């Protein structure tokens, strides 16, 4: 042992530690093209009733689909679209975010000019003038129990729908440096905020305490140590599932299990672009990514990308295995556009909000 170099010891130890994963990866890699999900995409645009082709957000509510567009809130039900606008009480025509209160069926819509609650066809609107809402630009909303958590251009806030009390969170009572909150994911145990330029904020429901996760490299667009921490300060979206935090930034994406970070960049993963608008975890292992260059799926080892080809616009699906081998899969449909802003699941199907329409990915049997 005396002559055995330390770095050799560490290398062997590391290899032993990752051996099971490598074996699994090798196995999954060989099966990747077969196991990754395939979809037939049906796309909705204004031509078939969508309120607007710029779709910021999508929400699945059983058989009903809500689409937050630049020109109203669309509801797809029984094969028809209904559009809600400011005339119906919607806070603003541009609907940036959507959340479902699964207990009551109420839908919360974050807009460019306030937060709206859609309940049984009635729309009530909260603004920074008529309520305790911190700012009218509502980038994200999430419902947990009787609390509605809101991410705005001027801080985070929480509305208790039982008491009507608003609680604001900003630089005065949290570690938030920037107050431009861009995404929120609320669960009974943790609430995570994606903060533009200020990393990820974590609120622990039990203690009421805030913590913060930042890019250890600061705001540099250089990753010195890849898995040292959050990939970047400019965080656009968060999703907390099965005790795993998934975070999207404009410079890559991150997965955090409470102890270790794992980051995803185009150069060493199947992520089609580091410019990641949205992220949605399926479980602790799997997640979907919405980027400016397509929709991506990660199953814990392999990646799939669904998009119109960047070269010719033709439908494209590619699979990248653990070894980095990329295999094209023959498909005839693709999401409406590469610029993906929203994702939601409907059983095995997926709904995707894009810059040029809403897409319904219908899972195909394989």
């Amino acid at each position: 042992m005396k002559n055995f170099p330390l770095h050799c010891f560490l290398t062997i130890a590391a290899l032993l530690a990752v051996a099971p994963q490598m074996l699994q990866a090798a196995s999954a890699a060989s099966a990747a093209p077969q196991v990754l999900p395939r979809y037939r995409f049906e796309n909705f645009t204004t031509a078939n009733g969508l309120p607007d082709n710029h779709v910021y957000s999508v929400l699945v509510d059983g058989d009903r689909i809500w689409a937050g567009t630049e020109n109203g809130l669309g509801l797809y039900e029984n094969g028809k679209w209904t559009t809600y606008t400011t005339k119906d009480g919607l806070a603003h025509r541009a609907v940036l975010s959507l959340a479902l209160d699964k207990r009551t069926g109420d839908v919360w819509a974050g807009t460019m000019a306030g937060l709206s609650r859609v309940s049984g066809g009635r729309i009530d609107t909260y603004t920074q003038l008529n309520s305790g809402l911190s700012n009218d630009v509502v980038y994200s909303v999430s419902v947990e129990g009787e609390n509605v958590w809101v991410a705005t251009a001027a801080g985070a806030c929480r509305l208790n729908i039982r008491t009507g009390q608003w609680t604001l969170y900003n630089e005065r009572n949290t570690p938030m440096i920037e107050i431009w909150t861009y995404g929120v994911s609320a669960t009974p145990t943790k609430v995570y905020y994606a903060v533009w330029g200020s990393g990820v904020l974590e609120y622990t429901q039990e203690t009421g305490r805030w913590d913060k996760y930042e890019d250890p490299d600061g705001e540099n667009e250089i990753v010195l140590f890849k898995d040292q921490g959050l990939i970047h300060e400019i965080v656009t979206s968060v999703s907390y599932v099965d005790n795993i935090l998934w975070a999207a930034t404009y410079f890559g994406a991150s997965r955090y299990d409470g102890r270790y970070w794992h980051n995803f960049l185009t150069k060493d993963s199947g992520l089609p672009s580091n410019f990641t608008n949205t992220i949605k975890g399926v479980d602790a292992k799997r997640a979907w990514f919405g980027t400016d260059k397509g929709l991506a799926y990660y199953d814990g080892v392999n990646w799939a990308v669904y998009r119109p080809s960047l070269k010719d616009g033709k439908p494209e699906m590619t699979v990248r295995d653990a070894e980095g081998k990329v295999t094209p899969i023959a498909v005839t449909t693709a999401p409406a556009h590469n610029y993906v802003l929203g994702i939601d699941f409907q059983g095995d199907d997926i709904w995707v909000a894009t810059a040029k329409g809403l897409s319904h990915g219908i899972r195909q049997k394989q």
Partner: protein
Amino acid sequence: MSGRNQAGMRAKRAAELTPLAAASRAVALAFFVIALFPGRIVRADEHVNAAEDMNYASPLELLLSPNGARLYVLCQQSEEVRVLDAASFAVIKNIAVGRVPRGFSLSPDGARLFVTNSWDDTLSVIDTGTLAVAATWPVGAEPSSVVEDRGGKRLFVANRISNDVAVLDAQTGVEEKRLLAGRGSSYLTLSPDGSRIYGTHIYPNPPRVRTGLDNRTAPESEITVIDTARAVVVDRMPLHAIAGVFHVALSADGRLDAVAEYHPKNLVPLAHLEHGGAFEDTLTVFGADVGKPVEVPLDELERYAAMPFGVAIAPDKSLIYVTCGGSEMVTVIDAARLLHFIHAHPEPFARDLSASANYVVARIPVGRNPRGLALTRDGRRLFVANRLDDTISVIDTRSDRVASTIQLAGPKTVSVLRRGEQTFYTARYSFQGQIGCASCHIDSTFDGLTWDLEPDGFGRDIVDNKMLEGVKGTEPYKWNGGNPNLPTECGPRTEKYFWRSEQFDDLTLTDLVVYVRSLQPRPNRWKLPGREMTPAQERGQALFTRDVDKFGKPIPETNRCSYCHSGPKGTNQKIFDVGTQKPTDNSGLLKSAPLTAIALTAPYLHDGSARTLEEIWTVYNPEDRHGRTNDLTKDELNDLIEYLRTR
């Protein structure tokens, strides 16, 4: 809310008073009342006696047991359910419940009776076998109505203050969730097939646009339709221009449904009562037999149906019965003629005073302030609870006459308070009996509307209707402080501008004033027990009382919250101009408004232009004349509001 909790509490205490003590109090009150009326001395001493503290029953709602053998009477003031033999009317048992009970219903099998106790936020569960309270469950803020689903799985409770319907486990009382309802959520009805619950509310929903001046809009209400199995709201039937929605009744086959409601004409000057009325008293009928929901008037010229409340539909759906609390009668509608009229005449006819002659077949005088009603299974007898004379009218539905009147046990003497409350709730004093105090002050509170009161032209001096609870000791009255005391407010002003009719005699006015002064604020649900406050409330209180702004600059005394809104009721009773005058206002001088129950009484400011407390400062205080607030951050303003809600 009858606002009689205070009387109820006093009633309980009355049993502890000695006759001498009671007499002493009566004399003291008599001198006090006389002192109130320096220019209009009344013989209050003859009226005010020990009966002041009497424990009236005040029957509010009625239920028949499934086999028709028992009549359950919900007595609001004595705070009990009285169980009567439905044939002999003998008392089987009186069951004490919680404070100010407002609604009750039987489980589908009749084994349990649920009672909502509106002032202590509980639900009493009565075992109808033992006629004892089996459980008392905490529920939401001001529970007002309750129904159980057919399967006995869930209870649905309408909460008036939190504007929602709570969904509870029917066996444990544990709350599962709350569904957004209309503002002042109050009455629930289960459909005959058990698949739907129809909920109504007494205050109009918040307007989408600010209500001041040129953008005043008619009130909007709804019937909230709940899917019972899923316990979610699946529809909201809009009720346009309606403010004040009460009981829904559904026919046995569910095809003919009706809801009692107020249709205020608050966008035109109320001073013109004789030119068409201040309210339409209407039903909205809906269901498959009707088609699209239709609003139909109950009023007829000189025969108004003021303050419709309870509705019942005959088992064969031939007749619809509506209690009219202000007109002190039951209106009887021939359903076939009503449907024929609806189908033959295009809308709208809600304001057509000749319409009701086509389908109203009887107007049956009953007791004072009739409210709940119950129809026997064969439809031959209709029981009506006359809240303010402690009687139940038994109507023979074949002759449309009161066959008998059951006098509930209780005081035989009518106290000043009781007379005052009777005056408050009757429409007999107004021109053609169109309205009463309670038309606008629903359940002795407010109505959430702005009105155009004085004969100063259309759209001049629009005023928000005020809450009456805690009004004692906040003179002068009116928004501009123009009335020095309640006798002036309730007397000449009401008679001249509202009733357009006979004046109250002096004794009646005395009674009315004593009653209005007795109205105490309901329990504040934002207050923690004792003097404890939440951190936000504490921070808000510090802002309320501060004398230096955030820049260290002293705030002039007259521009501090705590100066104008001082004292226990939040008013120093002085006149100020806080910069809220609108071009249509004759003056910007206003009396500092009391803060009593401020969390409940939207809209705000003298003209109701602020839809929420926030808008008072975010929209209508640009120059800091309504207190120094523009130095506050948004979270500080939220703290201030959290404190105000405790007032």
